[in-house]
């Protein structure tokens, strides 16, 4: 029943190929899955006491948002699968560039997410060293224990 409704909304008539129907189902499943990924990872960041676990969930959160942004740039071409935004051979006429426009996906979100991944790994390395210094200072990575705890180690590195 769900399948019927989705396909009817997509094309107003019964689709001829199985792939048309599966495409709309796949796009909706993937979107809902990414939203749930974002929510679960955010729950981990907010609720878990261990700093390393917070870091792991932050990595998952960043990756989910990145893949969601790339997914917005994806494209549905009926009857064929879209191609990456890369010319396969050196074009000899302007018409060959026009054929790429008909089949390729949107390159702009990919370029921006490439930048985001680089900045993400840069921030990850800095956060890792901060967690390491926190452990050397307090002797634990659990934030609740560090709040209750006694004096920090005097001879911390």
């Amino acid at each position, binding site marked *: 029943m769900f399948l019927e409704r989705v396909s009817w909304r997509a094309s107003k008539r019964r689709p*001829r190929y*199985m792939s048309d129907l599966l495409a709309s189902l796949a796009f909706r499943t*993937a979107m809902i899955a990414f939203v749930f990924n974002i929510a679960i990872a955010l729950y981990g960041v907010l609720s878990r006491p261990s700093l390393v*676990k917070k870091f792991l969930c932050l990595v998952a959160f960043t990756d989910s948002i990145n*893949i969601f942004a790339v997914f917005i740039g994806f494209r549905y071409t009926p009857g064929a699968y879209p191609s990456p935004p890369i010319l396969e051979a050196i074009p000899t006429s302007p018409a060959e560039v026009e054929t790429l426009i008909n089949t390729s996906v949107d390159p702009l979100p990919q370029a921006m997410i490439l930048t985001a991944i680089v900045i993400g790994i840069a921030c990850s390395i800095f956060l890792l060293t901060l967690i390491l210094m926190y452990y050397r200072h307090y002797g634990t990575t659990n934030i609740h224990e560090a709040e209750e705890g006694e004096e920090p180690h005097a001879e911390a590195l």
Partner: protein
Amino acid sequence: MQIDVLIIPYVVIIYSSLLSVFMTYLVVRERDLLIATILTLTQGVFYSLLYLLLMAPDLVLTYIPVSVGVTPLLLFLLVKKTERFER
């Protein structure tokens, strides 16, 4: 209705997105931080499969070394230097 070759990428998109949700749930739930790091790595594998199917080969080439190589390695070192189990 005809079944054609094009259903394969869409089936893989559904499969790997659902499994990535399961992996995120396991990462949040796992108490052993070493195993949680390995689960994050598995989630990275599913995400790189999704990047490949979303037609972003540049991002696949970036994401595989970052999420399967560099970040888990640094996290292993961090877990080894701090504590392994979360309380």
